[in-house]
Every structure is written in C-alpha cells, then in structure tokens.
C-alpha cells in the first residue's frame, strides 16, 4: 500500500509521508496541461510553452524516480540535466523557425501555414 493509497483511504490526510506516487501524479497533471496547451493554442510560441510544460513534467519524473530508487546513483539527475539542455536547444531552433514563419506569412497563427495543402 503506497502512501497515496493511505491518503486516499482517508488516513491522516496532510501528514501522510510524501512518496514517489505524489510526484508522479503531479507530473501527470503537468503533462496533461502541457498537452492541452499544445492542442488549443494557435500561436506558434504558445505551442512551445506547452512543450516546455511537458518537458518539465518529464524532469520531475526523472528526479523523483532517481530519489526514491536507491542505488540509481546520479543517473536520473544527469538525464534530467540533458533534458534541460535539449529543451534549450529545441527552444532556440523553434523560435528561429517561428520567426521565419512570421517573415514568410506575416502571421504567427499556425493554422494559416497551409501553403502545402493540396
């Protein structure tokens, strides 16, 4: 029975020991909000903000699993570090692409980029 199970079964609510599942549930919520932002925003940079949310959820997952998995050493944290570096690279390229998109189409609305539509 995990700590969250105890929490759900109506044990001592706030004082339940924080465990792995708490962090994983938080990361799931963050992931879904990121996905929602990606689905609903039509501004190209707004989509990027959604991607950043999803990547942050991934980072929380990595660090929490590393913390609650004894013997994993530094693996989880270093992977999270790589995720942050890759996110920075992705943001740089994507902002350059968005700028180019804007220069060519005079708008940042991704729904108007339909030049290739048959």
């Amino acid at each position, binding site marked *: 029975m995990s700590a969250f199970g105890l929490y759900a079964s109506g044990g001592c609510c706030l004082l339940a020991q924080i465990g792995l599942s708490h962090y994983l549930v938080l990361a799931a919520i963050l992931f879904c909000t990121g996905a929602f932002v990606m689905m609903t925003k039509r501004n*190209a940079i707004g989509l990027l903000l959604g991607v950043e949310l999803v990547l942050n959820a991934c980072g929380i997952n990595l660090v929490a699993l590393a913390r609650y998995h004894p013997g994993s050493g530094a693996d989880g944290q270093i992977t999270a570090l790589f995720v942050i570096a890759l996110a920075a690279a992705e943001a740089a390229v994507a902002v350059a692409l968005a700028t180019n998109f804007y220069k060519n189409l005079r708008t940042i609305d991704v729904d108007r980029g339909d030049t290739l539509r048959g």
Partner: protein
Amino acid sequence: MTKRRGLGFGAMLLLAGGCCLLACAAAHGQDAAPAAEQAAEVGQLYDHPVVESLLFYSLAAATVVAALGVCIARDIVRMAIWLFVTLSTVAMLYFLLAAPFLGAIQLIVYAGGTLVLLVFGVMLTSRSPWIRFEVRPSELLAAGAACLVLLVGLVAALLRAEWPEAAAGESPRVATLGAELLTTYLVPFEAISVLLLVVMIAAAYLVRQEPKE
C-alpha cells in the same frame, strides 16, 4: 490593469526571493556534509515528514495553478509569465527532492535563458493583423476531454502500479554529478556540446536577413 500587472511582478519577485532562500538552505545542507552537525540541523528540518508534506503540497498547488494559468491565459506574454512561475516552482520541487544543482540549473537555464528567448520570439512576431486568434469552443471541449481522459488514465495506472517501497535514498552530491558527467556520460556530454554548437549556427542561419536581389 496596471495594478494587476504590478501585483504579478510583485508575486514574481517574492517567488524569486523564496527560490534563493530555499537554494541557500539546500546548498548549505548539501555542501556542509563534513560538518555533520550543521548538515543534521538543516537536514532534520527538511526530512521532517510534516514539513516535507506541507512544502510539497504548497509547491504542488502553486505548480498546478500556474500550469492552469498557462492554459487559460489568452495573451501570450501572460502565458509566458505563468510559465515562469511554473518553472520556478518546479525548481523548488527539485530542491525538495534533494537535487539542488538541478534546481539551480533549472532556474538559470530555463527561467533565465529559455523563457527570455521565448519572450524575444513573442516580440519579434507580435505585429500582425491576425494577432488575436480564438479557438472554437468545440475544439476547446474536444481537447479538454482528451486531456481529461489521458489524465484519469495516467493517474489510475500510477496508483495501481506497484512501486518499490524504498524510502528516499542517499542523493548524489554535486561533485559526484560532475565526475559522472566526465566519465560515464562523457560521450553524451560531448554530443550535447556539438549539438548546442549546431543549434547556434542553425538558429543564426534560419533568422538571417535575406539579401535583396
């Protein structure tokens, strides 16, 4: 409007101050390991279950509220500010997870670098006849339903899964991280450096002014 903006900036400043305080506490607890008594003092405060759960729940609530703010905000600059709050609270969660180095990197690279880059992107692309575009309610509804189903499925799977009952283990120190980065992870580390160089050149190439013919 101006008042609300002032409040937002005040909240941001407060948050940054809180981040610094937490960073100091965490770094102190981490690096003072040889001086066992000091480390024990800070560590005890951190490890106390009530303090930890209070910190976790408040940070988690702030993270979720800020993420929802990113969803709900219409103005792209406002979305960016909400994202800044989210990134900062996630950095604090890293401190809570005994990963102070990662928290600091999150603040410096994400909140300080990536987000500023995104805001620059907003400024470069904000002059347009179609700058405000609304999404149809049906699309909103469909996206919300899909995300809700995804969330329920994920949480159900997470709560049903059997996680190892391990308590929090010993977290690696910053020196260990550096040593691992230059031994075990040397190849990915170098690959990332090359990738960053390529990205720098590519971004400069993509946004360059076309020469007039």
